[in-house]
């Protein structure tokens, strides 16, 4: 039902562990963010291109990830050319592309479940602050399971709205949807309690 953005493959990038990739991404973006010189951004751009080719996800997939940036990059480029010249514009647009592209590369080469597991284990040191990683993992799976349920609820509510002749009313849609959402949460809570997930 819910498909992640992961592109299956067996490249060296796919085989690295999620934690390693996240750490490398964090360091690269941190360094780039602080030292935003032409050399660093050019280096980042070369790395992005090389890693994309190495990962085997395809240039087209990568361009699709960068596409939402298009209007903003054009805006920034035009603004910087006007204000500080083409060199600064290239730097700004390059930084945007590389910071988004590298992060997208991690998403494209790591399974959703692996990233989720990585986040949950990242919560473990917070246990002493009262964070319960298992309950966090349970919450995330419940959310994934609830999405199709709520989609169905929203379709029911839309049909009900049509039957009442109130197609144009946002209120006749959103109020029943919200009430049914809260009721659904009540039922989920009861179901959890029935399965032995008690209050801590």
């Amino acid at each position, binding site marked *: 039902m819910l498909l*992640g*953005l*992961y592109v299956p493959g067996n490249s060296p990038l796919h085989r690295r562990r999620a934690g390693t990739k996240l750490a490398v*991404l964090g360091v690269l973006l941190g360094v780039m963010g602080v030292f*935003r010189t032409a050399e660093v951004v050019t280096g980042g751009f070369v790395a992005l291109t090389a890693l994309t080719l190495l990962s085997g996800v395809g240039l087209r997939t990568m361009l699709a*990830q960068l596409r*939402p940036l298009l209007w903003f990059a054009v805006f*920034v480029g035009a*603004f*910087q050319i006007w204000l*500080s010249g083409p060199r*600064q514009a290239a*730097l*700004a647009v390059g*930084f*945007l592309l590389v*910071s*988004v592209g590298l*992060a*997208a590369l991690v*998403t494209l080469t790591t*399974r*959703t479940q692996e*990233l*989720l597991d990585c*986040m949950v284990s990242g919560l473990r040191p917070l246990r*002493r*602050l*009262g*964070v*319960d990683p298992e309950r*966090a993992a*349970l*919450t*995330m799976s*419940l*959310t*994934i399971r*609830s999405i199709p349920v*709520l*989609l169905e609820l*929203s*379709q029911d509510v839309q049909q009900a709205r049509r039957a009442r002749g109130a*197609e*144009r009313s*946002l*209120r006749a*849609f*959103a*109020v029943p949807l*919200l*009430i049914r*959402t*809260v009721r659904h*949460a009540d039922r*989920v*809570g009861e179901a*959890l*309690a029935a399965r032995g997930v008690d209050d*801590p």
Partner: protein
Amino acid sequence: MRRTPLATHDLALVAVFAALVAVLGAPGYISVSGLSAPITLQTLGVMLTGSVLGARRAPLAVLTFLALVAAGLPLLAGGRGGLSMFTGPTGGFLVGWLVGAAVIGWLVEHRPSRFGLGWVALANLVGGIAVVYAFGVPWMSWAATDLSLSAAWAASIVYLPGDLIKVAVTTVIAGGLLRGYPTAMPVQHRVRRDRDSVAG
């Protein structure tokens, strides 16, 4: 400071509202008739979550949603997702949602008794717009390399009218929920806390 983990029913509410934010971002399923341009209701989901779940559970619901996005599920409006949503120029708005939901929840929980739904509107103006833009705009200016704050504002301002409409809609819907399901709103929260203190 150690905080107790969430009670089971609260956990269910957090999970289901995280799913609601996701569902409201799916334009194929929810069409706001009467408008020709598709408008995303995801911010509406964040505002509703803040208004209904209160200061503690609302940010947890938004955090759960953002964790799933970061893990690579395409849950943001337009079928977008992945880590690049956080490293890109609009990442600040996502962080703003998190803080904004907490602020909305706190304000709604601390509603002075002489105010009615007008207070809910105020809470959403502050948390759902002021806080969100306070994170989103400076982040955008940083990500775009010395883009001036006023230029970053210019790039964000197109969303402001839609956000104002969403505040109005949230207020109306919150009123509907209050009538249709009175125990769902955080006013209830104070009662519950009193009961806890008696029990403790």
